[in-house]
C-alpha cells in the first residue's frame, strides 16, 4: 500500500469516527423519544378504550391545578395549570380532574400515579367525604416505598383540594375494597384530609396558588385524619 493510500484510508477512518461520535448521541435521543411517544400513545389508546374522560362541551373552561412530581426538587409536587372544561357538579368534576391527573403530565417521568391505573368510580357523601375507587393497578404498579406512596396520595388529595372544594376528606378504595396499605407502607384504612376550609363555589381561576406540595408535617392534605374504621 502506497503512502498516499494510507493517508486517504486513515483520513477516511478519522472522519467516520468523528461523524459517529456526533451522530450517535442524536440517534440515541431520537430512539428514546420515539419509545416514549409510543408508550404514551399506547397508554392514551388504552385510556380512551377503557375510561373516557367525561367532558361536556358546554362546561366552562377553567384554570385547573394538577399536582405532578417536580423535576427540580426531589420527591415534591408542583402545581401545573391547564385549561379544562370542568363540570360544576362536584362528583363529575372530581372524576374529570382525577382522570386528567391519571393521564399524566407531558413528561412521563413526572407522573405520580401508574400509567395503567384507572379511576373506576367516585362518590361524594353528604358530609363531604369523597370515595375514590381505583383499579388494582394503583396498588400493584405504584413504586413501593413511603416517599413514592405518599407522593401518589398527595397528588390526588392536593389536586382535589385545588379544584373541588366540596370534597373535605378522601377515602381510597382499590377495586371496591378497603385495603390496609397502598403498596406496603401508606395507610389506606382511614380518610385523608382534602379541604379543611368550608366549601366555596368552584372558582379555580380565583383560587390562590398553593405552595408546592412538599411532604412536610405542615401540609394538611395527605394526613390521615380520622378513625372511621371497623367497629
Amino acid at each position: 500500500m502506497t503512502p498516499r493510500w494510507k493517508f486517504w484510508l486513515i483520513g477516511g477512518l478519522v472522519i467516520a469516527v468523528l461523524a459517529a461520535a456526533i451522530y450517535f448521541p442524536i440517534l440515541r435521543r431520537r430512539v428514546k423519544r420515539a419509545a416514549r411517544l409510543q408508550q404514551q400513545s399506547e397508554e392514551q389508546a388504552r385510556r380512551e378504550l377503557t375510561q373516557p374522560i367525561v367532558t361536556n362541551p358546554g362546561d366552562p373552561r377553567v384554570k385547573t391545578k394538577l399536582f405532578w412530581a417536580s423535576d427540580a426538587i426531589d420527591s415534591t409536587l408542583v402545581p401545573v395549570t391547564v385549561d379544562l372544561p370542568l363540570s360544576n357538579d362536584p362528583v363529575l368534576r372530581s372524576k374529570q380532574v382525577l382522570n386528567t391527573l391519571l393521564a399524566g403530565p407531558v413528561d412521563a417521568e413526572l407522573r405520580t400515579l401508574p400509567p395503567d391505573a384507572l379511576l373506576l368510580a367516585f362518590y361524594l357523601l353528604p358530609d363531604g367525604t369523597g370515595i375514590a375507587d381505583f383499579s388494582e393497578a394503583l396498588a400493584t404498579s405504584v413504586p413501593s416505598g413511603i416517599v413514592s406512596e405518599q407522593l401518589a396520595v398527595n397528588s390526588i388529595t392536593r389536586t382535589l383540594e385545588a379544584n373541588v372544594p366540596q370534597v373535605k376528606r378522601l377515602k381510597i378504595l382499590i377495586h371496591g375494597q378497603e385495603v390496609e396499605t397502598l403498596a406496603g407502607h401508606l395507610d389506606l384504612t382511614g380518610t385523608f384530609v382534602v379541604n379543611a376550609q368550608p366549601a366555596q363555589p368552584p372558582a379555580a381561576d380565583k383560587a390562590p396558588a398553593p405552595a408546592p406540595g412538599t411532604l412536610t408535617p405542615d401540609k394538611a392534605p395527605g394526613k390521615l385524619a380520622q378513625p372511621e374504621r371497623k367497629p
Partner: protein
Amino acid sequence: MVSPSPAPSQIQQPAPGTTPPASSSATSSRGGVSGSVASPFGAQAQQAGLNIVVLDPPHGGTDPGARGTGGIRESEIVLDFVIQVRRALELQGFQVVQTRQGNENPSFDDRSATANAQRGAVFVSLHVSSTGLPGTVRVYVNADLPPVADSNGLIPWDHAQAPFLGLSKTFGDLVQGFLTQRFKGSPDSAQAASVRQLRTTAAPAIAVEISSVTVEDRADLDRMAPGVADAIARGAASFKPSYVVPNSPGGLP
C-alpha cells in the same frame, strides 16, 4: 378490650375480624430479645428509662418490598442493615429486639405487638425506597391521629401511636439531624406520613427510609449502613433523657 391480666398492657386488641396481634409470650420468643432479657415483664419492669430499641426490618416472606432492576430486594437488604444498627445500639448500651430475624413476614399487628409488650422502648422501622435521590435518608413519623378517648384509660389498638406523636417527632428529628449530617440532600427534620406500621405502635416510633433500590451497585447501599446505624444509635442516645417511660408496657407516656 383486654383485661390487665396476665399482661398489664393498656393496649386494646384489634376489633374482631382484624388480624390479632401475637400474644406476649409468642412475641418474646419470636422477637429475639437480646442478652439475658427473655420476658418483657420480668427484669425490664424494674428498670427505669429508655433501654430497649425495637428494630423492624419490614416485609419478608413472599413480600419482597421494593425491588431494584439490579435484583436488590428491600426485604433482604434491611436485614443486613439491621445487623449494623443493632451493633451500634448495643454499643450505646441499649437492648435490641427485632420484629423478625429471618425471611418471615409477621403482620403489622404482630410487629406492633412485639413493641407494645416492651417497657421503656422506642420503635424503628427500617426501609429502602423505590424512588428518591440515591444516597439520602428520610425519617417519617405518623401523621395526625384522632385523640385517645376512652373512659377506662385504655388506648385503642388502632390508634396506639396517638399519645406518642409528640415524642415520636422529637425522636425522629434527632435521628434525622444525625442522618442529614452524614447524607447530604436529606431533609432537615422528620416528615409526617401515614405509615401503617407506626399507627398501632404504643411507643415513640419512627420509620427510616433509605434511597434507594435503584442504585446500580448494591455496594452503594451497603456503604450507607454504618452511617445509618450510627445516626440511629446516636439519635436514640440523645432521645433517652427526654423520654419518661410509662409504668407498664404500652402505657401512656
